[in-house]
């Protein structure tokens, strides 16, 4: 009984992912199906960054770099792995999906290791300084990826090449073209729903409250026995893992190219904006913001050159009119449960850790 309760939400994530693919997606055309995948990937990105920025209160603006690390790692595995297994880099359903799943998980792990390497020394830094280091790390990743060699596309060359050579043949500034398109609605939403289960379970457990205490007051948290550095690194690594998975989903999606420029600081900013707009620490807020901010530019497409101007103005006015984001720190299901909760007060400058 207890174990059923333990795993049933994860089973539910799988069922829901299939419902999205076969129940929801057929109602839309191909264009909107791609949009549905984009939304799912952005949900993974926003909810995972929320673990760092919203839960642990650490200010990372290099999330896209972890996405890039995971995406390139996974992409290299499916692309060059496909040549070894199938002799080409086309989509092979069944076996190929297994390869994709393995590659995605490896991509997540590589990103998590990168998160650990970056996080461990730099999480000693406070607030804005951490932000700058994550930004700098992102730029270094981007430049290094731009320096990689051209993608190999001849089977004989690939089979002859060593792993090291292949790991450096990632397409450079042009991007990693030719990846098989494995990313489907099922895969995207499987990971999105799994992350949501994890995030909600984290927020409502002692471990998750430890993250929150670090955000609220680091000195008090450590006086209560919370190893603040350890929890910060944990949040960072967990977030990087899912950013890596989102990177793999992005890499194997139809209509996107995995290239260093796409995953620069602008992408990181986009994700930060989703988290802040949703309300720092609010999981449902991050989901809603990911949906809204993925769709908004699409709705503004008619306005062409004014699109980004309107987007910018909306962003500024949102920050001025509703500074705590859509839901503040709360969840959508908590909004009407507690009538006595007052509006978060504006904090004096410098009071935010």
């Amino acid at each position, binding site marked *: 009984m207890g174990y059923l309760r333990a795993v049933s939400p994860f089973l539910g994530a799988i069922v829901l992912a299939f419902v999205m693919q076969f129940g929801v997606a057929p109602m839309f055309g191909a264009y909107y199906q791609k949009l549905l995948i984009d939304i799912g990937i952005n949900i993974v990105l926003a909810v995972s960054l929320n673990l760092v*920025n919203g839960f642990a209160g650490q*200010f990372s603006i290099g999330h896209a770099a972890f996405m890039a690390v995971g995406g390139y790692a996974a992409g290299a595995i499916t692309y060059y792995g496909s040549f070894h297994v199938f002799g080409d880099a086309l989509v092979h359903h069944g076996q190929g999906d297994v390869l994709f799943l393995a590659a995605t998980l490896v991509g997540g792990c590589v990103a998590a290791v990168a998160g650990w390497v970056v996080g461990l*020394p*730099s999480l*000693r*830094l*406070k*607030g*804005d*300084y951490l*932000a*700058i*280091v994550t*930004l*700098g*790390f992102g*730029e*270094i990743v981007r*430049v*290094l990826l*731009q*320096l990689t060699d051209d993608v190999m596309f001849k089977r004989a060359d690939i089979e002859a090449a060593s792993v090291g050579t292949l790991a450096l043949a990632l397409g450079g500034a042009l991007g990693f073209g030719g990846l098989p398109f494995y990313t489907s609605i099922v895969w995207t939403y499987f990971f999105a729903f799994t992350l949501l289960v994890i995030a909600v379970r984290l927020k409502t457990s002692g471990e998750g409250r430890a993250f929150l205490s670090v955000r609220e007051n680091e*000195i008090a948290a450590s006086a209560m026995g919370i190893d603040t550095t350890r929890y910060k690194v944990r949040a960072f690594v967990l977030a990087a893992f899912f950013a890596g998975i989102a990177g793999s989903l992005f890499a194997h999606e139809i209509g996107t190219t995995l290239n260093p*420029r796409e995953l*620069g*600081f*602008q992408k990181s*900013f986009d994700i*930060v*904006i989703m988290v*802040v*707009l949703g309300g*720092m620490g609010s999981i449902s807020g991050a989901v809603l913001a990911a949906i809204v901010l993925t769709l908004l530019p699409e709705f503004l497409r008619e306005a062409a*050159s004014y*699109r*980004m*101007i309107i*987007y*910018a*103005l909306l*962003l*500024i006015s949102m*920050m*001025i009119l509703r*500074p705590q984001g859509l839901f503040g720190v709360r969840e959508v299901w908590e909004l009407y449960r507690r009538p006595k909760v007052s509006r978060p007060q*504006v*904090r*004096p*400058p*410098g009071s*935010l850790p």
Partner: protein
Amino acid sequence: MAKLLQTLFDGVAVGSLYALIALGYTMVYGILQFINFAHSDIFMTGAWIAFVIAKAAGWAGGDTPIWASLVTLLGSMIFCGLLGFVIERLAYRPLRGAPRLNVLITAIGVSLFLENTGQLEVLFGTQPQRMPTLLSSEPLFRIGGVGLPLVDVVVVLVAVGLMLLLQWLVFSTRLGRAMRAVSFSIPVASLMGVNVDRVVSFTFVVGSALAAAAGFLYAMKYPGLNQPAHSTWILLGLKCFVAAVVGGIGNVRGAMLGGLLIGCVEMFGAAYLSTSLRDVYVFSILILVLLFKPTGLLGKATVEKV
């Protein structure tokens, strides 16, 4: 030897540009504790306004009088100073005292707004342009076999002149004292009768004018102007921000030091190691400095009172 000297000149010229922009970041950070991401777009606007002025006046070629450069420079500085004033008034002032992340996102919003507004056809358009040559790039004189063009000399002289002016402004005037008071503590300064709003406005005007001057000088030295939303602008801005942080953010002299250091590191790295890794050097310096001296080279450590 000639290469060494040449690289040093380049490093100092670029470094003084970085320093000028870094000053804007550092002053705003010192007073309001936020990273003004839109500062790089003020710099971009400064360069483009210089282009618009020179183009409208029909100045081109190496024989334009020196006052043409001066008019362009001042025009750009005045425009951007006003722009900085308006931005602070409309976008940042309503958020005074709000969580830092919100202000940061607003700054990103302002940045997006400036870039995309600049791309409108009625303004700068979506195409790269070539800045008319106002200052000759012929070597003015030679030192150790290396020619020093007028552009580089002007870049360094104007940058150093403006920095000295700022130094005087911050440390020897009433307004400068008010600025330092506000950067120490906004509530205390306002209790002591300092008009905080005016000081903040003034800081934005000065910082933006300096960025515009840097934009003008940049356009002189590198005449191929990228379109407003091109990522080179933000990347340049980021490097200057890095310079401010490396020097110790909030510290005026630190920004100058950081700018020169970053400029030299970048140029020497590019000349002696690899050109394509120049951004990596800059960000690696940043990470190293922050890990070993988290408050920057000239920054003071602040201790949280428990």
